[in-house]
């Protein structure tokens, strides 16, 4: 075997073992009974329920905006497209805590933000804040994931549909969306998975209040703060199970979706 291959396989094995070792060693830290009772505690059940519901809502809202936005970025030609394309990457590159801080400042220190927070929907330190924080982080990720899905679909399908008497909008629903189905589903699962684990922006905007804005990530943060390692481990295992399931689904779907 050539030195390059030895080096490449060595690095691959090291990284794989590194991930497995962390998971196995941390799960061996606690006993199964203590783990089971932590998983079934009211606090964890609340956190699971809040996490799943907020992540689902924020993912749905993110996709509702990201699908047309990604379609526009993939197909439309307009001045300033590359600037907008770059702009959309900012929330991805920015630390989530910075995004949460910006949202917190907006809702507490600007007239429009204060009006919305006081008179329309209360976001600061409330559950809608969890959803908004997740939305802010995952919506641009959804655009990034969906753009290549739409780019992978030959625009001639829409053109042919239109020559057959179908409007551009109907062609989008009858041709583009069905062709993007696998990619859309995979992008939705990845977006949802990212929303599940969102912490930085959520804790800044919605706070870390037990049984109120306590998502799984925040529950882990709170359990670490009070040195409750069984609880932290239980949350890690739940998140791990969700992550593995998500990755398995997306590996099967996403690459197939891109290849349409």
């Amino acid at each position, binding site marked *: 075997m050539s030195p390059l291959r030895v080096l490449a396989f060595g690095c691959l094995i090291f990284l794989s073992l590194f991930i497995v070792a962390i998971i196995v060693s941390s799960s061996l830290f606690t006993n199964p009974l203590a783990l089971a009772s932590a998983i079934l505690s009211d606090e964890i059940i609340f956190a699971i329920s809040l996490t799943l519901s907020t992540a689902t809502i924020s993912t749905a809202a993110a996709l509702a905006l990201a699908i047309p936005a990604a379609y526009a970025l993939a197909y439309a030609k307009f001045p300033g497209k590359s600037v907008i394309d770059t702009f959309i990457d900012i929330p991805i590159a920015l630390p989530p805590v910075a995004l949460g801080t910006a949202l917190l400042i907006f809702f507490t220190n600007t007239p429009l933000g204060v009006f919305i927070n006081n008179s329309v929907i209360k976001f600061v330190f409330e559950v809608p804040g969890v959803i908004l924080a997740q939305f802010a982080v995952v919506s641009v990720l959804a655009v990034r994931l969906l753009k290549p899905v739409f780019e992978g679909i030959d625009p001639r*399908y829409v053109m*042919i549909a239109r020559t*057959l008497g179908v409007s*551009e909008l109907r062609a989008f629903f009858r041709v583009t969306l069905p062709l993007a189905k696998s990619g859309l589903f995979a992008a939705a699962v990845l977006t949802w998975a990212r929303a599940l684990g969102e912490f930085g922006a959520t804790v800044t905007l919605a706070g870390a209040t037990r049984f109120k804005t306590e998502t799984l990530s925040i529950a882990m943060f709170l359990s670490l703060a009070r040195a409750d390692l069984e609880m932290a481990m239980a949350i890690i295992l739940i998140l791990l199970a969700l992550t593995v399931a998500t990755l398995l689904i997306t590996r099967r779907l996403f690459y197939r979706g891109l290849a349409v």
Partner: protein
Amino acid sequence: MISVSDLTVKRGNFALEGINFSVEGGKCLALIGPNGSGKTTILECVAGIIKPSRGRILIEDVDVTNLPPEKRRVGYVPQDFVLFPHLSAEQNIAFGLKGDKSDKVKEIMSWFEISHLAGRDVRSLSGGEKQKVALARALAANPKVLLLDEPLSSLDPLSRDRLRRELKSILSKILTTLNLPVIYVTHDLSEADLIGDYLAVLNNGRIEQIGLKSEVLAEPHSRFVADFLGYNILEGRVVELKDGLATVDVKGLLLQVEAEDINLRKEVSLVLRPQDIVLSQEGAVRERWQHCRCNIISGEITEIYRMGNIAKVLIDIGVPLTAYVSASMLDEFRVGSSVFVQFKACKVKPLR
């Protein structure tokens, strides 16, 4: 009827300029030209996919120049057919139909003799089956004009030969039954010859020559057209005019040319079709040509290419010349052997 006037499109470095043609119902215009000459751009303008910067497109006297594709009633079959992969063959055909679709779909599938393909995944169809489904899909939407963009180009050579004849018979049926004007894009001369009623030769965004197929093939108007059609082009100088016959000196060879509008001592480009040349081992004039003014020149065969039933023979007569002969005659000719080249004076046409 479709009528296109002064169609102009500018796309980056490419420009389609001043395209004019019209095709009546039941006739087929074959647009032919090399890659990048603008054939597909013309179709895309007619289909409404590209907006022209100038010009007008009338379909049955309705100005569709500024209408979106869905309002034009144009049946467009693009290269490689672009069938919707998420729909079955039947669903593809029904795509453009409104209201009760099943009867119409059944009718058109039976018309194309593809009823057995109804539930098939279009990705599993053969090239010929895809072609029929794409044509059926385009015609099911009740178009006023049919546009075909190199429908045979994505097929392997064997299937192409078979499907060319099949397509010809389908198109004849479409032309006579539906009385639609058809625009057929190809870069293959034999395809255009088989399918088109009219021929338009495109070069670099312009129509070099347009007319009845027989006229264009018989008398190319420019060096480009003659060259594209694979004709021999001989450069010479008129040295004598006598009794309606010109003698042209082509690098020392004196060729007899029947032409009226030709001037003494002028440089002239002569066009001679390969199929108008007869090869023989003896220099005697063919019996049937006894009463014609005829050129007989000796030469040497330099290359022979078999092309199915015919062979392309390259001959050196002082200038290179191409002739087509029946492949069955190849026993008589070998590369390097001497040969007599015969062609009638009336078959040598000066370029205008």
